[in-house]
């Protein structure tokens, strides 16, 4: 089959590799309909996540058709149209049975390495480095899905591939950012108007937010925030974010600050950005945390900072004293796909949510490298590129 392989920093190639096969009794093989790029892939592509190996197939946000099931798969059959959660959960361990699927004890075959770095290993994620299990990703004609009964969700009738695609990752991630933090009446600020940030804005409304404020620097993304996210907007390259947020909130600050950016954040403060960028490139700090620092500064006293932007390990100059003295709560995590997807598919079916607008570019897999470049450069009004490795009706 064809697959998009990572062969080094910013080096992606479409390759002919063998087809996947059932390796464990609970596996299924999915013929991929759509497979989206994700902001968190950029950390891999740009070489900021260790434990990538040349030849790794990337991609983790996808849907498709079941073509083969292992002997222990009970709920799926050949021909089912499914959307698959990017995070792999066994369904049986303490964390999965407590709906904390991204903390799964069992799904990560390289647990021993992650344990050294994190203290305790977390769930595996498709196509997301060997630290996260080394599972082959979804930018391919076929993908093997582990614990398929837990990871695959049947797409309701009347919901298209395009509509259901982002229920795999961007939508549950944004939804979780709001679900962890937002109470009715809260003013919610969201840093990053990409796929996850926009889903967080929509979800904040669903959770009863009274106002939503979006922070980004790309006008076309802020336009989506305004139109789709019903948000007030702040372009951080034009105004002082902290002052603007204070003014917009009667001097109190937002009750909830959502970081939907993560470890490759830019900063409107040129000195801070240069400091972070140089240290990151010299590998003196793995993660740049300008957004996280600003969120802590901006947040209302006693408020909540909700972090779904991805960080790899360590952050420098974290404003711990500010967090502590302002009595802030931090909520965070890779998203618990299997907890949220069924509910989100219901919302999709009821017409409460429709994330399909994120899909600005549908391209063949052969254009994988160009797709990532356009997405990385925020060119051509790109929100998300999704590849269609096997063109399906």
């Amino acid at each position, binding site marked *: 089959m064809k*697959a998009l392989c990572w062969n080094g920093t910013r080096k992606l*190639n*479409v390759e002919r*590799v*063998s087809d996947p096969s059932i390796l*464990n*009794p*609970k596996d299924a093989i999915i013929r991929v309909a759509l497979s989206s790029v994700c902001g968190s892939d950029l950390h891999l592509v740009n070489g900021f996540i260790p434990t990538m190996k040349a030849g790794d197939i990337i991609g983790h946000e996808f849907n498709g058709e079941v073509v083969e099931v292992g002997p*222990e798969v009970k709920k799926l059959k050949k021909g089912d149209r499914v959307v698959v959660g990017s995070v792999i959960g066994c369904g049986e*361990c303490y964390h999965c049975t407590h709906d904390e699927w991204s903390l799964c004890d069992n799904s990560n075959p390289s647990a021993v390495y992650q344990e050294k770095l994190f203290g305790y290993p977390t769930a595996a994620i498709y196509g997301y480095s060997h630290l996260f299990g080394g599972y082959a990703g979804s930018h391919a004609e076929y993908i093997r899905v582990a614990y398929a009964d837990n990871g695959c969700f049947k797409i309701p009738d009347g919901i298209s591939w395009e509509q259901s695609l982002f229920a795999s990752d961007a939508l549950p991630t944004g939804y979780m950012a709001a679900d962890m933090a937002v109470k009715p009446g809260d003013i919610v600020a969201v840093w990053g108007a990409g796929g996850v940030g926009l889903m967080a804005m929509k979800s904040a409304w669903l959770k009863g937010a009274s106002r939503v404020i979006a922070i980004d620097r790309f006008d076309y993304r802020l336009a989506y925030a305004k139109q789709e996210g019903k948000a007030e907007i702040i372009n951080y390259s034009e105004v002082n974010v902290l002052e603007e947020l204070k003014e917009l909130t009667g001097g109190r600050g937002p009750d909830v600050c959502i970081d939907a950016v993560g470890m490759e954040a830019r900063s409107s403060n040129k000195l801070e950005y240069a400091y972070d960028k140089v240290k990151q490139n010299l590998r003196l700090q793995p993660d740049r945390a300008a957004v996280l620092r600003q969120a802590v500064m901006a947040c209302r006293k006693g408020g909540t900072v909700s972090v779904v932007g991805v960080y790899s390990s360590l952050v420098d100059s974290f404003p711990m004293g500010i967090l502590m003295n302002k009595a802030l709560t931090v909520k965070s995590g890779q998203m618990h796909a299997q907890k949220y997807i069924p509910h989100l598919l219901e919302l999709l079916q009821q017409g409460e949510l429709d994330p399909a607008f994120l899909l600005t570019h549908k391209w063949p897999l052969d254009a994988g490298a160009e797709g990532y470049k356009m997405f990385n450069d925020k060119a051509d009004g790109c929100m998300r590129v999704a590849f269609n490795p096997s063109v399906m009706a």
Partner: protein
Amino acid sequence: MNENSSVGHKPAVNVSNTERIISAVAAGYLLYSAATGNKARLLKAGSGAFLLYRALSGNCPLYSALGKAPKPDPVKNINVRAVVTVNKPKDEVYTFWRNLENIPLFMKHIKSVTTMDNGHSHWEADIPGMSSLLSWDAEIVKEEECTLLSWNSLPGAAIDNAGKVTFADAGENGTEVSIIITYRAPFGPAGESVARLLNPLFKNMVKEDLRNFRRYFETGEIPTTKGQPSGREETATIL
């Protein structure tokens, strides 16, 4: 089970290391003297041999007769510990372990365990770096329903070893399973230093085995990516 608990069946050590060195030097002198001298050769040879035995074995029959307490074994038993919490009730976990033939399902290097009618079991292991399968017989030496299981290898084992697994209720977290494996390296002190070098590897192996136990027992499978496609395959080609 402490660091120096005895494994297998060897004479108890009751002579300190310093005494053993003095014994060895004295034995050498006496034996040399017995061989070359001309007075009291039989007495010298006899005491020399006695001291040599005392030095090499660490066991002094005289001390034993006088009731001196055994000393810690200088070829120390090597202990490896690991613990895991498994999301299942204690009785189920215990029952699974009590059927020793289940062990190869999650311990990668144990090829088979066969239980015999007399309660003994026959173990076969494929240890990295060993050219052939290691095998030994073991017996269960202590068993407390749902709480504890311990075994000891029987005389003649290639590697004297013993193990203990304990099961503790961890409330809604399930069951805490703690394992201690104790073994005595073959080939005496030289073997011991090799074993000490390899011990971190062995410890990781036991930890991974226990992790695999949880994976297998909770889900019925052990996660893997072996055999999946990648651009590293020999036949992969860039299009």
